[in-house]
């Protein structure tokens, strides 16, 4: 199966801009389904971006982040062709990880 993570990392010389979109329901645990039953919470809790062996950005998320979450940030450094590693873990213990090349 295809990765749940889509990443665009673009170097502009000094900084690298990173955008990520992740496929995840991000159920908050406050919404009822069509049968009137509460959809149990199911959301990503931690999302990590690692470059050159170091975390450059860590997101701690609750159920208030939108479905198929999106985040954008920038960090100093990062060379074209280098790897950026992205991983997430959700409240049910599921994880996914991918490596993107900086463009």
């Amino acid at each position, binding site marked *: 199966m295809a990765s749940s993570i889509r990443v665009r990392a673009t170097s502009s010389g000094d900084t690298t801009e990173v955008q990520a979109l992740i496929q995840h329901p991000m159920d908050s645990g*406050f919404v009822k389904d069509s049968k009137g039953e509460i959809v149990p919470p199911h959301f990503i809790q931690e999302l990590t971006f690692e470059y050159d062996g170091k975390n450059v950005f860590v*997101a701690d998320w609750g159920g*208030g982040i939108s479905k198929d979450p999106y985040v954008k940030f920038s960090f100093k450094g990062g060379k074209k062709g280098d790897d950026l590693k992205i991983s997430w873990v959700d409240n049910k213990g599921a994880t996914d990880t991918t490596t993107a090349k900086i463009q």
Partner: protein
Amino acid sequence: MTTPDNGFSATRRLILQGAASVALVGLGNIPLGFAPAFAAANDKYPEEAFKQKGEADAIKSLYGKTAEASDKVKLDAPEIAENGAVVPVSVSTTLADVTSIAFLVSENPNALVASYRIPAGTVPSVANRIKMAKTSNVIVVVEAGGKLYSAAKEVKVTVGGCGG
């Protein structure tokens, strides 16, 4: 967009390194024996803060202190959300030594939506998409040099993001 010269908050980072397994054990639902696919997490997931109802309690739980409003924190959010399920919100700041940025929605069932850890060298500017149950204040808290600064903006929501 600004790129202030971030000091390196060495102690905090060092303490955070290698704490991955601790962080994961802290998550109630993780089954025993679960091996994380990554070992990069460098702080504990602030589970309690995410459970708080109001924004004041959430900020207190997250940082143990209160925030002061600052015009150096630039919060960008729509006047009227096209849909409460997806509200694009972003922040940037000219403050130096930023170590974390948090987003809160005062009227959501749990106010804290996201908390971002900003290591040295990362630009203190984040964009994300959040859910809003109804019209309310979006609050952003920036931790810089050990102090908390905040900005707020009301976003009108007519179609709620909680299934309404």
